[in-house]
C-alpha cells in the first residue's frame, strides 16, 4: 500500500509539473497568470480523468475495480436500507445459529487435542465399550508390550485420571483433587513444553515408587499457588506422600479429554504407592486395565496400517497370555473417531443441532435470494444502462456478487453477536461439580474462521442465481421501461420455488423442535423412576488419607450409622455412584449361566452400581421381583446381585430371573445369584433408551470412593452442615466433596441439560419460521405491487375489493399450502430420522395436529396482510401514475 501511495504522489507531482510549465509558457506568451493557468488546465484536460487513465496503465485495474465495486455496492446497500436491514438480519440469524452450533460441536467433539501436531495422535488399546459408550483401555503390562513391539509409532504414552488427597504441607487438611498418572515420555511424545521447570525424564517411571516428582497443572498453580514464580522445588503432599514440584504445565495444555482438566501430573511408576487395596497391582497385573494410550503415528503411517500391526501384536499377546488377553479386540482410533464413540448422545446432539442450524441458514439464504430476485426488475434499467455503455456481463455479475459479499460480511459480523449470545446460553451446560470438569464453549479463532467461511459460502449461494438473473437483461426493453411490468414467468417461478421451499423447511424445523420438545416433556413427566427430592449427596474417598480396606469399611459403617441419628435424616445409604452419574458407577463384565457368547464377541459389559442395603429404600427404587439387599448379604454369605428389568429381558426373556446365576468378571470370576429385579430407571440421562443395569451389595464388594445419600424429612440442603460436622467428628482430616442436594444434581442432569437443548431447538424452529414468513410476506407484497396496474384496471372496470383480495390471497395461499404439504411429507422422514437418532419409536401425531394448523394460520396472516393492502389500491392513482 505504501508503494501505491508513493505512486499516487508521484503522479500528482507530474501532473502539477505539467500545469506549471504550461502556465509559464502561456505567461511568456503574454497571458495573465490566472488566464495562463486556466489555459494550461484546459490543454491537459480533466486532471482526474488523466489520473484515472494513468492508473489504469499501472495494471492495478482489478484492485481498482474491486474497490469501485465495493464502494458502489456499499452505496447501493445504503440507498435501500429496508432491503439491507432485512437481508443482513436474516443472514445474521442464520450465520449466528451456525457459529453457536459450531462452538458447541467444537466443545463436544471437534476441538483438537492441545498437543503438538494433534493430527498424528491416535488412541490405542482394547475395546471396553459399555452399552454403546465406547472406551479404549489397556493395562500397564499391555502398554509396555505395545511400546516395545509396535513400529508404527513415534512414541506411545499411557495415562490415567486418578484422585488424590492434595495438601500444600503435612499439616494442612487435604482436599480431593483429580490428577493424572502419566508415563515418563508423556510430555515429550505429545510435544508439550512445561511453562516452568522441566518435563519428566524417561527414567522417572522406571522404578516403582521411587521418583516423587509432580508437574502442576496451570490452573492449580494459578489458583492455589497464586502463580508463584519460585514454585520449583516446593514440596506438596499427595495422599500423604511428599512430592517435589519440578514443573508447571502450560495453560493451553488442558489434558487429554475435552472436559476433564487434571490438577497435576505424576509419574505412573508412583501408582503402587497410592493403592490401598493390596490386591490391586496396577503395574504388574495384565488385566488391570485402567490406562489410556495415545500414540504418535510415524510420518506416512496410516491408521489402517497401525491397526493392522496392533491386531498382530494383540494376537501374539493372546497366545502368550490367554488368561488375560483372550478375545480382546485391539483398536486404533483417531481422536475424532474416539470422541464420537465415547459418547454417542453428545455426537448425536451436536449433529442434530448442526443440521437444524444449517436448515435455518438455508431459509435465511432463501430469504435474501428472494429479496435480490425481486429487486432484479428494479435494477433491470440500471443493468441495461451499464450494458449499453459498454460494461461486460461478467463485470456486472461481479458487481452484484460483490454486493452479496458485502451483505454476507455484514450479516456475518452481526451473526457473531447472535452467535455470542448463543454461546453464552449454551454455556449453561456446565455440570455442577467441584471437580475440575469444564465444558468450554467459546467463540474462538476456529469459530470465527468457520463463521466467515459460512458467510462467504452463503454469499455465493444466495447471490449467484439472482446475479445471473438480474444481468440477463435485454438492453432495449430494459431501457425503455423503468419497473418492468410484463410478468416474466421464469423469474416468478424461481421466487415461488424459493418460498415454497422456505415454508416447507420451516415446517420441518418446527415439527422437529416440537417432536423433541414433546418427547422431552413426556420423559420428564414420566420421571426417572427414583426419588429426586429431599436427598443430600456427599462424597468420600478414604484412600486419599491412606485408609486401608478394613478402615474404609469401618468408616462407611460409622458414617451411615451416625448419619441416621442426625436429626432431620429419615434414612441414609451408601452407593458408589449417584443415579444418573454413570462415570462414577463404572461397568461390570458378566456372563449369564448357560448363555452362549456369539463368536468373536467380548463378554457383555453393563453399567452398575455398588450399594448398601438401604439404597433401594432411600432412593425409592421399586423392586418388582424378589428382594433388595440385606445386611446379611455380607462377605461370608453367598454372592448376590439385583438386576433391572431390561437386563432380565435380555438374558432371561419370559422367565423369572430370580434364582438364576451369572459369572462376574468371566471367565474365572465367581458365580453370583440374582435375588431381585428393579424397574428400569434412567441411568445416564433422562431421554435414554432403556438401559441394562446391575446392582452389587457393598459389603461383598468394598470400595474406597463412595457416596452418602441422606434422605431428609425437611429441606435437604439443611443437612449439609450437620452431616459435615458428623464426619469431622469421625476424622477431621477426611476430605469431603461433592456436597449438594440431589435435586440440584438431577435438575441439571435431567432438566437443565435437556432444557438448554430444547430451547436451542425451539429457538431454531422459531427463527426458521420468522425468516420463512418474512419471505412469504415479501413475495406476496412484491407480486401485488407488480400487479398493481392490473389490479387498478380490474377495479376501474368494476371488480370488487373482495374479488381482488381473493385473487391475491389465492396466489399466496397456493404457495403456502404447497410448502406445508411438502413440509409435512418431509416431517415424516425427519421423525423417522429422529427416532433412529434417539433409538425411540415415537409416532407423535399430536405434533402434526398442533404444528401444521398453526403454521397454516401464520402463513395465512403473512399472505393476508399484503393482499389486503393490494386490494385497497386506489385505481385512479395507480393508473394516473402509469
Amino acid at each position: 500500500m505504501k508503494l501505491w501511495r508513493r505512486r499516487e504522489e508521484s503522479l500528482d507531482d507530474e501532473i502539477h509539473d505539467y500545469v506549471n510549465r504550461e502556465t509559464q509558457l502561456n505567461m511568456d506568451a503574454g497571458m495573465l497568470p490566472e488566464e495562463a493557468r486556466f489555459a494550461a488546465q484546459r490543454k491537459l484536460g480533466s486532471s482526474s480523468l488523466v489520473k484515472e487513465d494513468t492508473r489504469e496503465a499501472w495494471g492495478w485495474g482489478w484492485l481498482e475495480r474491486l474497490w469501485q465495486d465495493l464502494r458502489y455496492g456499499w452505496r447501493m446497500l445504503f440507498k435501500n436500507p429496508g432491503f439491507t436491514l432485512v437481508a443482513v438480519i436474516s443472514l445474521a440469524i442464520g450465520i449466528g445459529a451456525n457459529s453457536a452450533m459450531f462452538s458447541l460441536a467444537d466443545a463436544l467433539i471437534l476441538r483438537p487435542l492441545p498437543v503438538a501436531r494433534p493430527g498424528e495422535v491416535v488412541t490405542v488399546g482394547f475395546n471396553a465399550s459399555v452399552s454403546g459408550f465406547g472406551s479404549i483401555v489397556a493395562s500397564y503390562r499391555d502398554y509396555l508390550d505395545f511400546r516395545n513391539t509396535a513400529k508404527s509409532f513415534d512414541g506411545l504414552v499411557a495415562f490415567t485420571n486418578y484422585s488424590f488427597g492434595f495438601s500444600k504441607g503435612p499439616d494442612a487438611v487435604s482436599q480431593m483433587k483429580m490428577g493424572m498418572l502419566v508415563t515418563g515420555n508423556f510430555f515429550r511424545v505429545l510435544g508439550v513444553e512445561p511453562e516452568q521447570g522441566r518435563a519428566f525424564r524417561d527414567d522417572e517411571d522406571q522404578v516403582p515408587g521411587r521418583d516423587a516428582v509432580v508437574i502442576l497443572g496451570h490452573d492449580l498453580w494459578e489458583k492455589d499457588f497464586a502463580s508463584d514464580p519460585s514454585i520449583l522445588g516446593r514440596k506438596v503432599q499427595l495422599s500423604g506422600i511428599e512430592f517435589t514440584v519440578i514443573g508447571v504445565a502450560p495453560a493451553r495444555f488442558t489434558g487429554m479429554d475435552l472436559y476433564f482438566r487434571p490438577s497435576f501430573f505424576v509419574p505412573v511408576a508412583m501408582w503402587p504407592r497410592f493403592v490401598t487395596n493390596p490386591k490391586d497391582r496396577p503395574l504388574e497385573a495384565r488385566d488391570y486395565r485402567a490406562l489410556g494410550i495415545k500414540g504418535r503415528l510415524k510420518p506416512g503411517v496410516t491408521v489402517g496400517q497401525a491397526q493392522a500391526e496392533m491386531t498382530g501384536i494383540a494376537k501374539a499377546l493372546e497366545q502368550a497370555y490367554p488368561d488375560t488377553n483372550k478375545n480382546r479386540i485391539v483398536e486404533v482410533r483417531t481422536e475424532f473417531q474416539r470422541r464420537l464413540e465415547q459418547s454417542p448422545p453428545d455426537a448425536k446432539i451436536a449433529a442434530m443441532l448442526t443440521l437444524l442450524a444449517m436448515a435455518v441458514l438455508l431459509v435465511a439464504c432463501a430469504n435474501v435470494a428472494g429479496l435480490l430476485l425481486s429487486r432484479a426488475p428494479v435494477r433491470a434499467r440500471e443493468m441495461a444502462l451499464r450494458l449499453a455503455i459498454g460494461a461486460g456481463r461478467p463485470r456486472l455479475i461481479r458487481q452484484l456478487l460483490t454486493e452479496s459479499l458485502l451483505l454476507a460480511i455484514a450479516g456475518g459480523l452481526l451473526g457473531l453477536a447472535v452467535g455470542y449470545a448463543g454461546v453464552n446460553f449454551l454455556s449453561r451446560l456446565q455440570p455442577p461439580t467441584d471437580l475440575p470438569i469444564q465444558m468450554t464453549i467459546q467463540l474462538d479463532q476456529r469459530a470465527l474462521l468457520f463463521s466467515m467461511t459460512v458467510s462467504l459460502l452463503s454469499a455465493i449461494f444466495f447471490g449467484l442465481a439472482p446475479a445471473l438473473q438480474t444481468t440477463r437483461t435485454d438492453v432495449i426493453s430494459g431501457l425503455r421501461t423503468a419497473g418492468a411490468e410484463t410478468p416474466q414467468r421464469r423469474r416468478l417461478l424461481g421466487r415461488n420455488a424459493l418460498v415454497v421451499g422456505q415454508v416447507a423447511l420451516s415446517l420441518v424445523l418446527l415439527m422437529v423442535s416440537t417432536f423433541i420438545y414433546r418427547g422431552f416433556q413426556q420423559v420428564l413427566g414420566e420421571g426417572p423412576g427414583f426419588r429426586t427430592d429431599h436427598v443430600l449427596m456427599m462424597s468420600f474417598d478414604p484412600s486419599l488419607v491412606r485408609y486401608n480396606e478394613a478402615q474404609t469399611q469401618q468408616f462407611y459403617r460409622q458414617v451411615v450409622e451416625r448419619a441416621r441419628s442426625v436429626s432431620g435424616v429419615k434414612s441414609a445409604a451408601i452407593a458408589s455412584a449417584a443415579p444418573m452419574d454413570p462415570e462414577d458407577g463404572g461397568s461390570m463384565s458378566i456372563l449369564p449361566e448357560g448363555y452362549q457368547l456369539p463368536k468373536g464377541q467380548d463378554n457383555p459389559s453393563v453399567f452398575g452400581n455398588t450399594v448398601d442395603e438401604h439404597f433401594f429404600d432411600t432412593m425409592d427404587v421399586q423392586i418388582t421381583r424378589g428382594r433388595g439387599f440385606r445386611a446379611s448379604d455380607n462377605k461370608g454369605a453367598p454372592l448376590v446381585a439385583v438386576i433391572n428389568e431390561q437386563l432380565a429381558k435380555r438374558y432371561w426373556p419370559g422367565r423369572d430371573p430370580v434364582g438364576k446365576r451369572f459369572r462376574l468378571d468371566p471367565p474365572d470370576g465367581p458365580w453370583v445369584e440374582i435375588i431381585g429385579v428393579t424397574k428400569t430407571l434412567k441411568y445416564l440421562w433422562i431421554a435414554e433408551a432403556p438401559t441394562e443395569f446391575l446392582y452389587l451389595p457393598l459389603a461383598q464388594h468394598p470400595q474406597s470412593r463412595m457416596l452418602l445419600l441422606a434422605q431428609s424429612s425437611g429441606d435437604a440442603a439443611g443437612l449439609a452442615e450437620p452431616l459435615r460436622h458428623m464426619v469431622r467428628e469421625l476424622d477431621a482430616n477426611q476430605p469431603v466433596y461433592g456436597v449438594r442436594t440431589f435435586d440440584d444434581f438431577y435438575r441439571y442432569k435431567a432438566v437443565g441439560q435437556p432444557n438448554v437443548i430444547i430451547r436451542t431447538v425451539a429457538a431454531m424452529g422459531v427463527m426458521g419460521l420468522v425468516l420463512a414468513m418474512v419471505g412469504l410476506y415479501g413475495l406476496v407484497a412484491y407480486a401485488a405491487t407488480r400487479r398493481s396496474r392490473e389490479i387498478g384496471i380490474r377495479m376501474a372496470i368494476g371488480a370488487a375489493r373482495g374479488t381482488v383480495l381473493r385473487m391475491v390471497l389465492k396466489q399466496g395461499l397456493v404457495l403456502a399450502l404447497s410448502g406445508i404439504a411438502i413440509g409435512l411429507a418431509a416431517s415424516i422422514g425427519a421423525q423417522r430420522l429422529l427416532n433412529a437418532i434417539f433409538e425411540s419409536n415415537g409416532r407423535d401425531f399430536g405434533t402434526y395436529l398442533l404444528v401444521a394448523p398453526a403454521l397454516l394460520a401464520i402463513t395465512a396472516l403473512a399472505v393476508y396482510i399484503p393482499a389486503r393492502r393490494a386490494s385497497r389500491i386506489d385505481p385512479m392513482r395507480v393508473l394516473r401514475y402509469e
Partner: protein
Amino acid sequence: MSTQEDRDKLELLQGTLDMLILRTLLFGPAHGHAIAHAIERGSDDVLQIEHGSLYPALHRLVRKRFIAAKDGLSENNRKAKYYSLTPKGRAHLTAENSKWERLAQAIARIMRPSTEEGQL
C-alpha cells in the same frame, strides 16, 4: 461486435502515440511537458495531441520497459520526472518504424489522387 472494432481503433491510435513518444525520446531524456510540445512542434502543430492522454501512454511504456522514468531536477531547480529510452524501447521503435512506413506507403498508394488512376 462494435466494442471489438472500437478496441482495434483505439489500439491503432495508442500505438501511434507510443511511437511518437519513443521517437521524441531518441534525442535524449525529457519530461512530460517537453515531450508533448516536441511532438506538437515536430509535426508543425498539425498533430494536436491531447496532452492529457500523454501520461497514460508514458506510464504504459514504463510498464512495458520501453522507457525508464527517473526523478531529476529541471533547469530552474524544480523536481521533475524525466523519461529516457531503454535499449528495449529503441529496438521496439525500429520495428514499429518500419511497420509504420509500410503502412503509410500502402495507405498513400490507395489515397493517391485519381489522376494517377489512368496510369495503372
